[in-house]
C-alpha cells in the first residue's frame, strides 16, 4: 500500500460516510413513498368510501320514502314525503359531485357513470310513474308502479355495491403498498447498517493491526539499540508515516553508528594523545630532573669556583708573609753588603730579590684574577696625563732594557693630552706588555707608541708595544690570552711566568671599555695593541662584575664597541728583527 495512514483513515471514514449516505437517501426515499401512499389513502380512499356509503344511505332512505308514500294516505303526509324525497335527490346530486372529484380509475368511473345513470333513471321513473299513480290513492295497497320500480332499484343498488367494493379494494391496495415500502426499507436499512459495520470493522482492524505490527517492529528496534545493538535496522514496507519514521529511525541509527565509530576513533586518538602527553610529561620530568641535576652541578661548580677564589686570595696572603721575610732579609743583606763593601755578594742578592719580585708579581696576578672572578675588582676612575703614565712605565723598564742592550723607545705625540680612566689599571697593562717585551726580546728594539684616533664618533687611545722578539705562531696565538696557558712548556722553563699576564691584561682592558689584540709572525716579532676609550664615561659602565669563564676563554672583541686594529693603524712598529723571542706573560 503506497498510501499514508492518514489517507487510509480518511478513505475508511469516507467509505463509511458514503454507505451512510446511501442508506439515508434510500430510507428517505422509502419514507416519502410511504408518506405518499398514506396521503393518498387519507385524501382519496377514505373520503371516497364515505361518499359511497352516503350514496348507499341516500338510496336506501329514498326507497323507504317510496314505501311511506304508499302507506300514508293523507295528502299532507304525501306532500311532506315528496319534499323529503326532493331533499334526498339534492343530497344525492351533491354526493355525486363529490365523488366525481376523486381520482378514479377507468372501472370505477365506468361503474360511477352507470350508477349515476341508474339513479337518474330511477328518479325519473319515480316522478313520472310512481308519484302520479300513488298521489291520489289512499287505499294503502301497494301500487303496481312500486313493483315496476324494483328492477331499476336493484340495478342501481348493485352498481352502488360495486362502487363500494371497488373503493374498499383500492384502500386495501394502497395499504398493501405502504406495508411493502416499510418492509423493503427495513430490510435495506438493516443490511446496509450491517455492511457498514462490517466494512468499518475490517478496515479498522486491518489498519490497526498493520500499524501495531509495524510499531512493534520499531519498538523492538529501539529496545535493541537501547541495549547497545547499533547494527539494528527496521525494514518497513510502504510509504506512510511509519515507513518515514522507520527511514528516519534507520538514518538516526546510521548517524548514531557513525557517531559511535567517530567517538571510538576519537577515543583512540585521545588515549594516544594521552599516552604522548604522558611521555612528554615524563620527558619533562626527566628534563626537569636533568635541569635540577645541572643546577646542582652548576651550584657545585660555582661553589667550587668560589672556593677556588677564596683559596687563591688566602694563598696570596699566606704566600706574602714568608715572601715578606725573604725580601726583607735580602734588602737587609743588600744594605749590609753595601755598607761593609762586600760587593761580590751583590749580584746574587740582586738575583734573589729579582726572583722574589717575580714571585710577588705572580702572586699579585693570581690575586687580581681571583678579584675579577669574584667581581671585586673596582675601577678608580680619574683624569690623568697619558704621557706621565707612559713615562713612568718606560722609566721602570729603561734600566733593565739598557742593561740587556735593547733600545726602548716611547713615541708619544706631545698633544696626546688627558685621559679619563683607571690610571692604575692602564699602568698595569702597559707594565705587563713591556715586561713581556723586555723579558722575551734578547736583541733589537722595543717601542711603545701612543696615538689618538676617532672611531664611531668616540675618541680612542691606542697603546702599541712592538718588539723584535721571536714572535708567536698562529697556533699559539689562539691560546695567548687564556689564563694559565703557557704557549708551551719550554717557554716556561726558559723565561718563567704563569701565563697570567696577557689574560689579566685583556681582562683589565675590557673592564676599561677596550680590548687588546696581537699581531705576530714567528721569527720577526710581535705587536700588542691596546685600544681604550679616551673617556671611559663615553663607553659603557665599568665591568667590574665581569666574571671569567672557568676555561679562561675571553671574548676576542666587544662587538661594535672597540675599533679593530689593523696593521695600517700602527704608526711606529717593528724594527728589523734579528733574534726573536717567544711571547708570554
Amino acid at each position, binding site marked *: 500500500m503506497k498510501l499514508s495512514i492518514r489517507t487510509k483513515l480518511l478513505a475508511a471514514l469516507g467509505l463509511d460516510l458514503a454507505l451512510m449516505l446511501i442508506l439515508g437517501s434510500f430510507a428517505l426515499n422509502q419514507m416519502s413513498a410511504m408518506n405518499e401512499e398514506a396521503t393518498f389513502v387519507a385524501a382519496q380512499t377514505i373520503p371516497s368510501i364515505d361518499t359511497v356509503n352516503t350514496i348507499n344511505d341516500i338510496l336506501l332512505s329514498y326507497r323507504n320514502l317510496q314505501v311511506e308514500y304508499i302507506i300514508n294516505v293523507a295528502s299532507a303526509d304525501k306532500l311532506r314525503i315528496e319534499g323529503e324525497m326532493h331533499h334526498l335527490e339534492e343530497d344525492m346530486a351533491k354526493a355525486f359531485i363529490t365523488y366525481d372529484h376523486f381520482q378514479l380509475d377507468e372501472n370505477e368511473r365506468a361503474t360511477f357513470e352507470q350508477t349515476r345513470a341508474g339513479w337518474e333513471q330511477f328518479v325519473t321513473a319515480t316522478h313520472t310513474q310512481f308519484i302520479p299513480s300513488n298521489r291520489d290513492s289512499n287505499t294503502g295497497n301497494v301500487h303496481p308502479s312500486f313493483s315496476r320500480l324494483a328492477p331499476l332499484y336493484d340495478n342501481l343498488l348493485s352498481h352502488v355495491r360495486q362502487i363500494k367494493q371497488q373503493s374498499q379494494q383500492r384502500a386495501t391496495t394502497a395499504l398493501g403498498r405502504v406495508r411493502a415500502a416499510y418492509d423493503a426499507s427495513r430490510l435495506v436499512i438493516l443490511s446496509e447498517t450491517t455492511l457498514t459495520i462490517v466494512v468499518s470493522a475490517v478496515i479498522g482492524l486491518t489498519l490497526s493491526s498493520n500499524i501495531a505490527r509495524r510499531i512493534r517492529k520499531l519498538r523492538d528496534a529501539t529496545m535493541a539499540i537501547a541495549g547497545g545493538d547499533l547494527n539494528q535496522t527496521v525494514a518497513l514496507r510502504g510509504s506512510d508515516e511509519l515507513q518515514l519514521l522507520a527511514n528516519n529511525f534507520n538514518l538516526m541509527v546510521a548517524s548514531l553508528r557513525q557517531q559511535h565509530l567517530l567517538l571510538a576513533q576519537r577515543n583512540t586518538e585521545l588515549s594516544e594523545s594521552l599516552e604522548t602527553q604522558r611521555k612528554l610529561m615524563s620527558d619533562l620530568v626527566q628534563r626537569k630532573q636533568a635541569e635540577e641535576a645541572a643546577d646542582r652541578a652548576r651550584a657545585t661548580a660555582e661553589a667550587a669556583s668560589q672556593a677556588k677564589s677564596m683559596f687563591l*686570595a688566602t694563598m*696570596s*696572603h*699566606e*704566600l*706574602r*708573609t*714568608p*715572601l*715578606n*721575610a*725573604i*725580601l*726583607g*732579609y735580602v*734588602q*737587609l743583606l743588600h*744594605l749590609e753588603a*753595601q*755598607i761593609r763593601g762586600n760587593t761580590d755578594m751583590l749580584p746574587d742578592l740582586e738575583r734573589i730579590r729579582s726572583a*722574589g719580585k717575580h714571585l*710577588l708579581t705572580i702572586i*699579585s696576578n693570581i*690575586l687580581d684574577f681571583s*678579584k675579577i672572578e669574584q667581581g*671585586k675588582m*673596582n675601577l678608580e676612575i680619574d683624569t690623568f696625563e697619558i704621557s706621565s703614565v707612559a713615562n713612568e712605565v718606560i722609566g721602570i723598564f729603561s734600566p733593565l732594557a739598557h742593561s740587556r742592550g735593547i733600545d726602548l723607545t716611547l713615541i708619544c705625540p706631545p698633544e696626546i693630552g688627558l685621559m679619563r680612566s683607571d690610571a692604575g689599571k692602564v699602568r698595569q697593562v702597559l707594565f705587563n706588555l713591556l715586561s713581556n717585551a723586555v723579558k722575551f726580546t734578547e736583541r733589537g728594539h722595543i717601542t711603545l707608541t701612543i696615538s689618538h684616533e676617532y672611531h664611531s664618533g668616540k675618541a680612542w687611545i691606542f697603546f702599541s708595544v712592538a718588539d723584535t722578539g721571536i714572535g708567536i705562531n698562529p697556533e699559539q696565538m689562539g691560546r695567548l690570552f687564556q689564563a694559565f696557558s703557557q704557549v708551551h712548556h719550554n717557554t716556561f722553563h726558559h723565561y718563567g711566568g704563569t701565563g697570567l699576564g696577557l689574560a689579566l691584561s685583556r681582562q683589565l682592558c675590557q673592564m676599561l671599555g677596550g680590548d687588546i689584540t696581537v699581531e705576530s709572525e714567528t721569527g720577526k716579532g710581535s705587536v700588542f695593541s691596546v685600544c681604550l676609550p679616551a673617556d671611559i664615561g663615553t663607553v659603557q659602565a665599568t665591568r667590574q662584575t665581569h666574571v671569567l669563564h672557568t676555561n679562561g676563554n675571553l671574548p676576542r672583541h666587544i662587538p661594535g664597541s672597540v675599533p679593530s686594529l689593523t696593521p695600517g693603524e700602527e704608526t711606529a712598529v717593528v724594527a728589523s728583527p734579528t733574534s726573536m723571542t717567544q711571547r708570554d706573560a
Partner: protein
Amino acid sequence: MATILVADDFHENRDVLCRMLRLVGHSTISAANGQEALDMAQEHRPDLILMDLSMPIVDGWKATAILKTTSDLRHIPIIAVTGHVTPDEINRAISAGCADYLAKPVDFERLLGKVASLLGDTQRPPFLSS
C-alpha cells in the same frame, strides 16, 4: 729617634722590620699578638706602631680599635702591615683607626718613607741617598 712597636705573629717578619727600623736609628719593641701589642703599648708608650692584622688571640683590627678608644694611647699613629691587599681589607684597617698601611712584602724605602712622614721627620738616612 723614635720608639716603634712592631706587632707580628711571624717571628722573621718582626725581626726584619725591627732591624730595618734600627738601621735608621729607631729603637724598637715587638709583640707576637694583639694582646701583647696592647700591653706593650700601655707599658712603653711607643711613638708609632706597625700592626700586622692577622694575629692570634687579639687580631690587628681589634687591637687597633682598642688603642683608638683608649684615651692616653689614641694619639699613637698605627700603620697596618698586611698581606691582605684587597680594597676591602685596607678599608677595614683604615676604618679601625690605622693612619696608613703597608702591603707585604714590605719595601724598605716605602716603610721608611711612611714612618718618617708619620713621625714628622722628612730627613732621609744618608746611606739611602745613593
